[in-house]
């Protein structure tokens, strides 16, 4: 049974501000979803022999554009910029 405190902790970890009310309703919803997906423990077969086949595929990092070719259009999408930098609040007091 997932608790409201755990939901608030998950929200904190996910950097999502949620209200107490929402935490309340999410608790019962996520609990019922976890109840459903918990059926995964009924899996049959040689569970321990199965190693997921996911792997990384790497390629050479090749430069395909000229310097600053995309700087303007990309920085134009930033909510706040200063020159060619993204502007954020200071993180050290």
């Amino acid at each position, binding site marked *: 049974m997932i608790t409201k405190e755990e939901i608030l902790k998950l929200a904190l970890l*996910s950097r999502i501000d949620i209200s107490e009310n929402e935490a309340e309703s999410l608790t019962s919803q996520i609990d019922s979803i976890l109840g*459903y997906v918990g059926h*995964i423990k009924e899996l049959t077969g040689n569970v321990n022999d199965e190693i997921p086949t996911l792997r990384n595929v790497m390629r050479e990092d090749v430069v395909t554009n000229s310097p600053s070719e995309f700087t303007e259009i990309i920085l134009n999408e930033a909510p706040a910029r200063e020159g060619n930098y993204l502007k954020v609040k200071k993180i050290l007091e």
Partner: protein
Amino acid sequence: MIDLQSLTITSARKKLDAKEFSAVSLAQAYLDEIEKKNESLNAYLEVYGDVIEQATYADNLIAEGKSFPLLGIPLAIKDNILIKGKKVTAASKILGNYIATYDATVIKKLKENGAVFLGRANMDEFAMGGSTENSAFGPTKNPHDISRVAGGSSGGSAAIVAADLALGALGSDTGGSIREPASFCGVVGFKPTYGVVSRYGLMALGSSLDCIGPITKTVEDSQIILEAIKGLDILDSTTIAISLTPSEKAKVIGVPWSVVNMEGVDPKVKENFLSSIEKLKVLGYEIKDISLPNLGLALAIYYIIMPAEASSNLSRFDGIKFGLHVPGKDLIQDYNFTRGQGFGLEVRRRILLGTYVLSSGYYDAYYSKAEKARAILKKEFENAFKEVSLILTPTAPFPAWKIGEKNDPLSVYLADIFTVTANIVGVPAISIPSGVVEVLGKNLPVGIQFMAPQGEDSLLFEVGKIFESK
């Protein structure tokens, strides 16, 4: 007057080449139709201002004697696929007024083909949902009954094709998001083998599951679009090359009755499914019962893996690099407010769920177990395909529901019960209209779904063409 209702990509191609009408007049006919119908359907989030300009370009190429399969063909694009210089939002507030800075690979290919983009299609926010009710810009209505959902997450794309607001559309399918809305709207929806179409420029939901594919009126039209957008891409390392030339395979179809007979499948859908089976027998197909021991776990596997991947993929939306920014007192609060207010309810729910199944205390019980289950299910499918060439199920367990009717998230997830499997094991699947069922005096479309082995996408076009012609 161009008769849009009977027009297909195939027939439009012939008429454009024969100069029966121009690309501009075709595009204008669709713009007029959109003007008439879109306000009530809410299928397009935006109709582009340069449609006639694009069509003029196509006409110039036609005048030079050029002919590509999609030259001058008006299409709609799901709002999670990037077109350089155009706004794109994934139906989310968190992207604000984001303008795409590059073309998705599929867009680049469609441009080379001379296709005309009419506008961007409504969807569930970040493709999370089965009804477009999770769009931040309101649900798309089903053209067959506007009190009902169009399905989702590519509901805008499906409604657009069904209501003659484009000749075809691109959708994306992570767990059924092309096939389920196609089934609800009475059109064809195709999810290719994983990797056949590049995902570069598609906003990621579950990267190991996501596929771009077509929604069209006919099976042949879907094949034409897939042929145009498929192919290896250096910018997506999961892409593979396949041929769509039909291969010779025995006409044996497997039906996983244990899943089809599960409770929760609407009796009218079941009845329609049985009559489709009878039709296939008449068409010369042998129907075989197949059993896949872990098939019943597909939905559980899916609702662990997809939120896990989504929670990771959506971490890029931070209010700093692009899109919405909601200021707080410090940087952490900037993140929390931007993501709390920018993401809709379902997106917040799935990010929390994904964070939970990936957390150190629960990783082994959920995520790791689901990946193992995925590998086992993949093997079960490989074995099943030794006995049969195709696997058949209904596309969805019920027809389109009333807007607002389902407010429990789990009950909406159950709509994906037949479709998620193809994404989990990476096989191609198609939804083809199989008639209508009567609900409260209205005829609502339903569809059947065929799955084929990995890379055998052509088998689906073959059986689809035979099924729809009879």
